[in-house]
């Protein structure tokens, strides 16, 4: 499967799991997309650890240092899985594992070349020496514990946006 | 062609008309039917609740009665599955009996299976009437793998309309001794099955196991339903 197909498959499956699915080309395009996705003025946690995060950070005037205080987390994640529409968050490189969990809105940026076709490909890539925490995230937090009626945003985010960049 | 008929204890004692219909059907397709004397039961009542010695004794008797090479045909998916799958296991540690069990297992057929696979009875078709739905019994479908044969036969009923049963794969609650051990659950399941049957608007419900049909019939009677409950053998034989 070629790059564009993988990206389309990932975004299609992410959308099917109730995530906002976006594709951008280039930094300018990414910043424009973030401008549309992130409500203006919200407290944003953007760790600024990667090039993409560094590029995005100045966009948020109300940037907070602690994800607990944020309403939105904007971060680049380890990768994605096309098969399931999943983003892959890992604790490597000093990344806060709860950043994508505590705020009500999680915006995950995935580099196009970090999309794995299948679960097998992803696990083969991490199985040798796994970091402390790997979390596969597919869609927003959900429950059907009351009468099997779907409710969104239990303990994790009620809104998840994925951006392929 | 010759075949040995295993009537089953339920048909023998409670539903002789199903046995007679089976004979009529088999003869219609040129089968010489024998009824091995001394046959009783396949042993499931004991086997299914864990009475291994008693089940073995009854199974041993069955094997002593059903000898020879002719196919064994029975109007019950459950009893056929018992012979086919559980007899060899019952005599696992007895080489001589095990050989007899495997020999019998290799030639046992449930009636609809025999009619379609061996006699190709559906090709000629049967006269039929009304609106018919069908309950697929659990042992027939899951243990014996007979899913299509009864449907093929029902679709060959000329003049009858076949309507599929919703949740057809759900157990009717009979379960042999289960109906006696946990009657409330058994009745509740039969009621649920009766609901599905009534919802189809069929005037007849049919099936391949007298036990399930007996349980369903009771639930239909309790609600005063006019829907007729008839074994597939009876339904097919009445037009010929």
């Amino acid at each position, binding site marked *: 499967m070629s790059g564009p197909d993988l990206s389309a498959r990932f975004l299609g499956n992410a959308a099917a799991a109730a995530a906002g699915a976006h594709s951008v080309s280039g930094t300018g395009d990414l910043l424009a997309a973030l401008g549309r996705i992130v409500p203006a003025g919200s407290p944003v946690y953007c760790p600024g650890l990667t090039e993409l995060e560094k590029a995005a950070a100045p966009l948020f005037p109300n940037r907070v240092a602690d994800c607990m205080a944020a309403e939105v987390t904007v971060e680049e994640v380890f990768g994605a899985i096309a098969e399931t529409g999943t983003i892959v968050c890992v604790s490597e490189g000093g990344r806060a594992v709860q950043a994508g*969990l505590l705020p009500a809105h999680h915006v995950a940026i995935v580099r196009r070349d970090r999309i794995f076709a299948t679960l097998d490909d992803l696990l083969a890539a991490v199985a040798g020496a796994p970091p402390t925490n790997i979390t*596969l995230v*597919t869609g927003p937090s959900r429950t059907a514990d009351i009468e099997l009626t779907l409710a969104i945003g239990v303990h994790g985010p009620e809104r998840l946006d994925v951006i392929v960049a | 062609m010759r075949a040995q008929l295993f009537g089953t204890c339920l048909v023998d004692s409670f539903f002789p008309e199903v046995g007679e219909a089976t004979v009529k059907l088999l003869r219609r397709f040129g089968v010489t039917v024998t009824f091995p004397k001394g046959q009783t039961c396949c042993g499931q009542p004991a086997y299914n609740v864990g009475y*291994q010695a008693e089940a073995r004794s*009854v199974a041993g008797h069955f094997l002593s009665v059903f000898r020879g090479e002719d196919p064994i045909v029975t109007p019950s998916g459950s009893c056929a599955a018992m012979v086919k799958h559980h007899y060899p296991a019952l005599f696992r540690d007895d080489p001589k009996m095990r050989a007899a069990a495997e020999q019998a297992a290799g030639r046992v057929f449930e009636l609809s299976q025999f009619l379609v696979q061996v006699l190709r009875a559906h090709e000629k078709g049967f006269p039929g009437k009304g609106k018919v739905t069908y309950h697929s019994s659990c042992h027939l479908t899951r243990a014996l793998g007979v899913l299509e044969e009864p449907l093929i036969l029902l679709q060959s009923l000329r003049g009858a309309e076949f309507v599929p049963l919703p949740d057809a794969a759900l157990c009717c609650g009979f379960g042999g001794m289960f109906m006696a051990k946990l009657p409330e659950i058994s009745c509740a399941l039969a009621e649920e099955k009766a609901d599905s049957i009534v919802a189809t608007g069929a005037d007849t419900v049919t099936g391949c196991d007298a036990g399930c049909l007996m349980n369903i019939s009771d639930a239909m009677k309790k609600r005063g339903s006019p829907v007729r409950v008839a074994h597939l053998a009876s339904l097919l034989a009445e037009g010929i």
Partner: protein
Amino acid sequence: MSDAQTSLSFRSNAGKAVRNQKLRAAMKHAADTFGAKRIDAFAPVADVEAMRDRASAIREEVLKNLPRYVDQFVASATRAGATVHRAKDATVAKEIIRKILADRGARRIVKGKSMVSEEVDLNAHLEAAGMEVVETDLGEYIIQLEGEAPSHIIVPAIHKDRRQVGKLFSERLGVPYSDDPQVLTRTARKVLREKFLSADAGVSGANFAAADTGSLVLFTNEGNGRMVTTVPPLHVAILSIEKMIPSLADFPDFIRLLPRSATGQTITSYVSVITGPRKPGDATGAKELHIVLLDNGRTEILGGESRDILKCIRCGACMNVCPVYRTVGGHAYGWTYPGPMGLILTTLLTGMAKSHPVVDASTLCGACVDVCPVRVPLVDIILQLRRRKVREGFSDPKEKAGMALFGKVAASPALFALGQRLAGRFWPVVRVLGGKDVAGRMPAPAKTPFRRKAP
């Protein structure tokens, strides 16, 4: 627990459940919903049968070499920085956990959903030691507020409708009444968020453990599993020994099978792989990780004829399709695990003397075998247990005498024919003796048995 239903009282529990129309409607709704979603979720998967074969083979390999995989897991997890404890039974496991928590002064405990912790009755033990234990899975939280046990392993509060939950929340949490699941969920989020942030420790279960890396793997939808395992400074995980999978690389098929079989989802919202506690350079995560491996009779089960039940991955698919479970619900089974796999585990883990009536809780229809993602021969095991029940003398004496008679009569054509004649003649009496539940549901015997008309 608000009711005294035990496995020994299964028959009367079931009778009560059958008459509870509200419960039956909820159970039917759940069974139908999960059944349909499961079928839809598997529909687009190419070669499901081969996938089930592979998963079954991996589980079989684990059982064949379980002690070796457990040892390997202990070594790997220890290398990753976790402290692993082995508990031979429930009492030991509870005490290990209490001591870990007490030694660190932990008072406020948040819990993720764990059937193994229900199996050992952990909450009561910790509460008796003065700790506050809060279940954080929404369903578990609801039944904890109500003082009940789970009725379903995936959807613990399946027996409660939205109005009951609304009433419970308004009474116990002092919030305005609402029966909107989204509003109720938001209430739980708010209440439980405070609990997470102030907790001294998190206690979770695990769906699987990878022997080669020492990782724990958890499947959740709500995110409470992620909270419990990463927010408090101390994380204690309890799991039973058979949850081993040889390698992290073996997981794709289990990730594909478990959510589809359980809830009809392609994948759960979250799948967490946790390998050891926070390490130098990690920004967050529990500073200390303790893993309690529970045996509680499993090594003995492994040596017996019913060992294949240990392949089970607790998806609950067998429960959702079981005609008995969908009619009576989980509480009637009287212990932690309901449904086909549950009645087997109940019998094997608590002993025949405490559980023998639940081995009757199957029509042997085989629907469970059709859906089991790892091909546990559930019907064969139920038959094994019924034979054991008879062998060990737990069957009803009247039934035993009746079966002895059946064994003789049905093996003798003369006696069988005599029995038929007697039953025919005395049917009105049989009907009265057999009661409306049994003989009352059968037609009268035929005047002339088929054998006398047969060719």
